[in-house]
């Protein structure tokens, strides 16, 4: 603090509290809506304090979905989302760390060609090439499978770049010492590079888990079978008509369930999340 201006500090707190309240409001309303029965929600205005149907609503969606919209159980969807998010996060980290290792620690023909091939994929989102990618996945017979959900989204350059940047900062003396001690490249990778990369891996994991969990367009296209829906798709399938035709209390319970896992990952791993965000985008 440069100087003491009490009214400015009060203003700062006031703005922050207002910001937090405005930003939290939609989620608070969602939670309240998920604890009432449908009749209460359909009243205008709906109540703004939690009701007594919390357990019934959540038990209903977890086991049997909604009654008017999709009847797929949200429990299965949460499992699908978890598998997809973990496969994307772990798959991306695994293939990126080894390719970055090869590009940094080896000299071989076509090295720069490979580097540029990965580089080109840096910003092109799946939304842009959606229909041809769908055809490829359909030709490979991977519709309605975990493989089809995760593999196409594993192709991304950000993780490779982060690891490459990080490896370039690892002192050369470490590789030299390893070579003198007679360690081969893979031994060096397992015993030196991997332990040093722990923080970067944790940071990337948070970012990529959220990325995988929140995917929408891709699962929307390739999951036609109810048992393969992810949670985000499940919500969309529960909305069947205009305002009054939907079971908003159940939809909102599912929305809370869809938000909870990634929000927990962000909050629990906040330190790595902030680091990962600021570093992957450099």
């Amino acid at each position, binding site marked *: 603090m440069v100087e003491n201006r009490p009214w400015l*500090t009060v203003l700062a707190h006031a703005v922050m509290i207002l910001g937090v309240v405005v930003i939290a409001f939609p989620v608070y309303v969602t939670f309240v809506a998920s604890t009432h029965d449908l009749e209460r929600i359909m009243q205008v205005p709906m109540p703004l304090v939690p009701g007594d149907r919390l357990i019934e609503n959540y038990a209903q969606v977890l086991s049997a979905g909604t009654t008017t919209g999709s009847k797929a159980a949200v429990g299965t969807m949460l499992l699908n989302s978890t598998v997809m998010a973990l496969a994307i996060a772990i798959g991306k980290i695994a293939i990126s760390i080894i390719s970055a290792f090869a590009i940094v620690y080896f000299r071989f023909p076509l090295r720069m060609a*490979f580097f540029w091939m990965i580089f080109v994929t840096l910003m092109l989102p799946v939304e842009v090439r*959606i229909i041809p990618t769908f055809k490829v996945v359909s030709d490979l017979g991977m519709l309605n499978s975990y493989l089809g959900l995760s593999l196409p989204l594993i192709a991304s350059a950000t993780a490779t770049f982060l690891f490459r940047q990080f490896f370039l900062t690892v002192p050369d003396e470490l590789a030299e010492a390893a070579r003198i001690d007679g360690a081969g490249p893979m031994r060096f990778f397992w015993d030196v590079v991997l332990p040093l990369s722990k923080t970067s891996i944790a940071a990337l994991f948070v970012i990529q888990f959220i990325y995988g969990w929140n995917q929408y367009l891709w699962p929307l296209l390739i999951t036609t079978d109810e048992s393969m829906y992810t949670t*985000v798709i499940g919500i969309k399938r529960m909305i069947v008509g205009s305002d009054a035709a939907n079971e908003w209390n159940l939809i909102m319970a599912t929305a809370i369930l869809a938000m909870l896992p990634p929000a927990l990952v962000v909050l629990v791993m906040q330190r790595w999340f902030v680091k990962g965000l600021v570093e992957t985008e450099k």
Partner: protein
Amino acid sequence: MEKRVVFRSAWLPYALVAPQIAITLIFFFWPAAQAVWYSFQLQDAFGLRSQFVGLQNFFTLFRDPGYLHSFRVTAVFSVLVAVAGIAISLLLAVMADRVVRGAVGYRTLLIWPYAVAPAVAGVLYAFLFAPSIGIVTYALRGMGVHWNWIINGDQAMLLVVMAAVWNQISYNFVFFLAGLQSIPRSLIEAAAIDGAGPMRRFWSVVFPLLSPTTFFLLVVNVVYAFFGTFGIIDATTQGGPGQDTQILVYKVYHDGVKAADLGGSSAQSVILMFIVIALTVVQFRFVERRVQY
């Protein structure tokens, strides 16, 4: 920058890059090439036969008022999302930076919307602002505002902008707070000693020093508005009413999947790819400049 110490092996490096290259080829280069190929084809109404028509799909697109309209909608949408998102999160970050105690606490309370899927954010806003039962609609009616985004194009645009900004604020906030905390205290103190008040210090010292972050966020937010908001649009307006919120990426999906116009949709994909490449180049040129800065 290159490593001095390297390992030698005839096959190992290829084996290590193989998984990533294979996935990139199968799910990136092959579909991208197909998109380019389809964009030169015209299919008959049943999708049975197609013929090579050169650039005709592109000419058709640029003569199509619907496509030009979609460009305008995307421009309005991304400017609103980027400007509102950056302004609000900059205000919050400056205030959080001022608070000596509790800045991290406020950060915790503000970063979680990043974890909410755009499609879920869309559903939340659709519910809050639902024309008949929404709680905010009710409050607005009390103030004499008649709110119905199902039939009013401007209100529909406002709705998706609000959901998109809400979803993106935490991201901008994290970057602004990190940028603010890296500004040397001595600069601010020097300005204070010279008699500059808080507003003057912000506009003459802090804001110029934040300009690299602001520019970076501008590019990221535009990219987000172009591509990341698909879920919000699909969960709320689905491009409507009419085509008033049909952004480019939604039109690719709509024409390709729902209207099954493969050639036209692929031509739109190709145009979008060029836009992405242009934005990437802008961002990288800027990153190079910042290194020298």
